[in-house]
């Protein structure tokens, strides 16, 4: 993973440009310090990004406890790879493909060992974690997403929650754009059925 993958920055677009510039400059100084071995600087980068990384890991893995480990793994790998970051993008943008990669890699390896989740196409069996249901419908989307088959869940999370395009998802997951669309269709259909039940 490097700077080459074109994914949108994760920053707040409502913030004026000069504030963004200041933040980027501060962030770049922190990156350079961390590249020089300054762990305190790296901790600040971690503090600025941990919640985004944790959210992505939690939704990709569908396992909050595992997401804690994955989040730690993302930052450990980021430290190791930090020398390759040249500041062409926001640190969060550089971190994003790594986050997805760790989430999926770990998921694959752990799935082999633990088989924690049994994929299903039966929407009535989508029985996942326990966040707050939406007030209007009582529908718990986090829970329903976690019960999706992994491939469908990954694409749904990246496309409909994270707002990535099919081209970006195909690059991130190493799949064809058509596969990404098919998985999204599958996920949406299952979730629609869950929403209706």
């Amino acid at each position: 993973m490097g700077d080459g993958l074109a994914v949108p920055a994760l920053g707040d677009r409502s913030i004026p440009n000069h504030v963004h510039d200041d933040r980027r400059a501060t962030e770049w100084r922190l990156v350079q310090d961390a590249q020089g071995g300054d762990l305190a600087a790296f901790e600040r980068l971690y503090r600025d990004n941990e919640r985004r990384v944790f959210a992505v890991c939690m939704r990709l893995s569908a396992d909050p406890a595992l997401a804690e480990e994955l989040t730690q793994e993302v930052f450990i790998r980021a430290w190791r790879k930090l020398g390759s970051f040249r500041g062409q993008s926001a640190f969060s943008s550089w971190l994003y493909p790594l986050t997805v990669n760790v989430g999926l890699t770990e998921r694959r390896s752990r799935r082999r060992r633990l088989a924690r989740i049994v994929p299903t196409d039966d929407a009535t069996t989508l029985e996942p974690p326990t966040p707050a249901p939406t007030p209007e419908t009582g529908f718990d989307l986090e829970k329903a997403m976690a019960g999706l088959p992994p491939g469908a869940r990954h694409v749904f999370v990246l496309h409909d929650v994270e707002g990535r395009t099919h081209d970006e998802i195909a690059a991130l997951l190493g799949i064809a754009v058509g596969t990404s669309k098919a998985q999204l269709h599958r996920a949406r259909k299952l979730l629609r059925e869950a929403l209706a039940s």
Partner: protein
Amino acid sequence: MTCREMDDRLDEWVDDTLPGVERREAEAHLAACTDCRQQEQRLRELLTHAAALPRSVSPPRDLWPGIAESLEGQRAWSWPRFAAWPPALAVAAAVVIALGAVLFGRPSPAPVHTVVIPSPAVSEGARLHPAALEMGSGLVAMETDYQAAANALMEALLERQDEMEPETLASVQQNLAVIDQALAEVHRALEKDPNRPELGRMLVSTHRKRVDVLRKMVRLSTAL
């Protein structure tokens, strides 16, 4: 358009990516079909929920201490890695000297089989300064492989020492000393500038040369 066809195109319809003709057909179908309109509403509701989910979620506990512990552990052994090369080279030099002494029939300061020791810097794996790790992790793996190969060849050579000509053995010693010196220089350069790809290539090429020399010598000794 049938309901099945509408269902197949529902994603593109709500994502507004349906081509012109199909879009008009979908529009007409939805205007006439209550079931499909209900599915469309469900999908839009679902997508609204998804888009409204928080993009940031706090972990239930502070994960930094675990990360810091892991990174401190790495730093403890990664930072002195290059500093550890001189002793590593000293070991390599000792191997060469001991090999030469044995091969030349002089008394060895220690039993030969105890001299062939994997370089600590190599056997400790991917422990590098973070700035060097993008390139360095691959290099460490490569060095480990080459070191293992070199060690195996060294052992094979030592087993055949009595069957080899002194001139041949002198050549082994000389070549390995030159190559180890070159390796030391490449590592010093990498320490100063860990991200120069040409240094990585040079390191690979030097290791390959070292193994090639040893392999040739083993082959030669086997052919004797």
